[in-house]
């Protein structure tokens, strides 16, 4: 008997015999990797069917959708994508299932340490990392070469280079910079990269207090308002999330672009981009005296506490995050993956040489505040940043002090009972 028919029977032996649906809350898969993976999983597990529930692209809106499902104790959700900032909250609220029995320490060691830290709350693990993101600077290689410029190391340098190129090109519609400055979660990522690279911070973790009012943080906000938005970016970026800002860059209408690793493959895809082959990528600039800071982003898979079949759900999560799957996704999409081995894979490195540099950036990427009250903090910060950079004459000092007071009030909830 040939071995393969027996292998086909294997899944029948290891999984329960009744057919079951696993409900997976995900986003729209614009890169086309999800469908084949799910088809593969279903082919290996004929008794399981993955039912996809597609949520909004914006992380903020996706969060609100999940929170609503949890609040309703929705049993129709088993597996869900989780942004790197949610595990503390979902764990504290009792919404995400602790996965330690499925995902022991030994298995966790294969992942980038920052991603495991982000998924750990009070000593237990709540998600299995899949994608890891870190902010990167993209630039037009051809344009920088034409003006004999090397990629900027500081933010002021970036502004000057952008101005030189835009003035020299005389191409209507060319702007200097595109990033994500809409009032949403991505705004916090963008702004923290300016603030941290100026030796500032968003909060003081030990004192449980906001840190936006300090000079370094204020200076960074002022720089974004006056020089990035004021001088080199189109004001349209104030309404942009990732797809819109990347589209602008891919159309050849921005010299510099801040985005996550996925933008590399998109901007170099000749079907979607007018600048394929002209794209450069490097670490984000810093302010003089500071060092480059990349926000840590990324997506994990979690299992709902209200899932009726956590074992089967784990079966799917394990498949989606195993080494072979992550390697496959990396090869297809060029996105940063959470397993360290992907960055050493010869085939991946041959196709995406930038993965060497990406690993270094991802290893140093800085997480946003890890706390169960991150969402209210983020809403305060989003409000502050958006107000500070949208109006040309905003009173940044007053706004920052106010934002800090609001953050302090939320953080006070975390203090031990006696101290309150």
């Amino acid at each position: 008997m040939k071995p393969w028919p027996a292998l086909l029977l294997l899944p029948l032996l290891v999984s329960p015999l009744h057919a079951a649906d696993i409900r997976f809350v995900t986003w729209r898969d614009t890169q086309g990797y999800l469908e084949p993976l799910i088809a593969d999983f279903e082919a290996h597990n004929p008794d399981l069917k993955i039912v996809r529930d597609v949520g909004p692209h914006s992380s903020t809106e996706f969060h609100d959708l999940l929170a609503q499902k949890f609040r309703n104790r929705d049993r129709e959700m088993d597996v869900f994508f989780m942004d790197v900032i949610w595990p503390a909250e979902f764990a504290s609220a009792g919404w995400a299932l602790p996965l330690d029995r499925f995902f022991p320490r030994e298995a966790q060691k294969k992942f980038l340490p920052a991603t495991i830290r982000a998924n750990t709350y009070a000593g237990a693990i709540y998600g299995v990392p899949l994608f890891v993101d870190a902010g990167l600077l993209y630039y037009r290689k051809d344009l920088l070469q034409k003006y004999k410029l090397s990629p900027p190391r500081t933010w002021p340098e970036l502004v000057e280079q952008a101005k030189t190129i835009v003035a020299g090109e005389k191409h209507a519609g060319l702007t200097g910079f595109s990033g994500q400055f809409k009032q949403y979660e991505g705004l916090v990522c963008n702004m923290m990269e300016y603030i941290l690279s100026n030796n500032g911070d968003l909060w003081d973790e030990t004192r449980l207090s906001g840190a936006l009012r300090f000079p370094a943080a204020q200076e960074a906000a002022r720089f974004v308002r006056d020089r990035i938005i004021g001088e080199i970016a189109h004001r349209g970026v104030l309404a942009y999330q990732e797809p819109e800002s990347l589209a602008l860059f891919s159309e050849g209408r921005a010299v510099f672009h801040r985005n996550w690793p996925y933008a590399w493959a998109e901007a170099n895809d000749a079907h979607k981009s007018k600048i394929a082959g002209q794209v450069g990528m490097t670490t984000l600039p810093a302010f003089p005296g500071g060092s480059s800071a990349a926000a840590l982003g990324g997506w994990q898979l979690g299992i709902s506490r209200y899932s009726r079949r956590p074992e089967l759900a784990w079966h799917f999560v394990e498949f989606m995050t195993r080494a072979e799957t992550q390697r496959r996704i990396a090869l297809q999409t060029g996105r940063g993956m959470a397993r360290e081995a992907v960055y050493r894979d010869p085939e991946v490195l041959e196709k995406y040489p930038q993965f060497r540099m990406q690993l270094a950036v991802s290893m140093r990427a800085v997480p946003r505040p890890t706390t169960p009250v991150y969402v209210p903090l983020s809403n305060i910060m989003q409000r502050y940043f958006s107000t500070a950079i949208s109006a040309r004459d905003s009173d940044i000092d007053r706004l920052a002090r106010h934002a800090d007071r609001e953050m302090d009030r939320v953080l006070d909830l975390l203090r031990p009972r006696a101290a309150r």
Partner: protein
Amino acid sequence: MKRADRAAVWFVLPSLFLVALFSIYPICASVRLGFYRTILMLPWLGEKFVGLENYADLATDAVALQSLGVTLLFVGASATMEVLVGAGMALLLNESFRGRGLVRAAVLVPWAIPTVVSSQMWRYIFNYRYGLFNFLVFGRDTSRYIAPLAEPWLARAAIIFADVWKTSSFAALIVLAGLQTIPDELYEAAEVDGAGAWQKLRRITLPLLKPALLLALLFRTIDAFKVFDLVFVMTQGGPADATNVLQFYGYKKIFAEGMIGYGSAIAVGVFLISLALALLYIRLIGARVLEPGAAR
């Protein structure tokens, strides 16, 4: 008579039950929740009774006050314009001309589209790169394109405009109904007396239309106060909180931040303001108008 009354009670009972289930119960539940501090992400804090603390916080919450201002602006601008545009539409539709049936049906189309769908449409229209708005204003000169939803005042104008586009026809329906209760004899008598079109409008139509106009204003004001879906789809409260209406702020507090008590206090606030407005209008219109057969 007595027997008819008793029968009437039975006919009213099912809808009374539905009103109790879908309006009165949620209102009472929100009022109760508003007196507690319940934070979903911090379950160990428990459900603590805090009296009026949430309301005291609300009164000093700069974001809530700014949000109230945005909401009032939205309500004032959209309700006024909707009644004006609606009245114009109604006057037109009340005339007899060829194809009137078709025009009447066409006018109702925006109102029949679910708000979420029409909001999505407006979001595309106002998109900076591929929106129709920029093309109509600036033509092919893409370098002058602006992003309406990124500018605080333009974003406010955009959601007001989208609301006027959608619900003016609702106001038109009410005004049209009012127009049709005005007896033709009055106009005939006026014509005999030598009144022109303008005089007929000012001396007959408008005074007799007042109750219908106020009624349209009442419905639109209260409905506009509850605006949520337009903001949810088009701006998510941004840019810089310029379109952060109260209902959206409360939604974010409850569903995103898990602050159940505080969010409920906001909802109760919106309810009380709508209630006050409704009572004010009813006094203004006179309770008589709302009774059956009182329209004339």
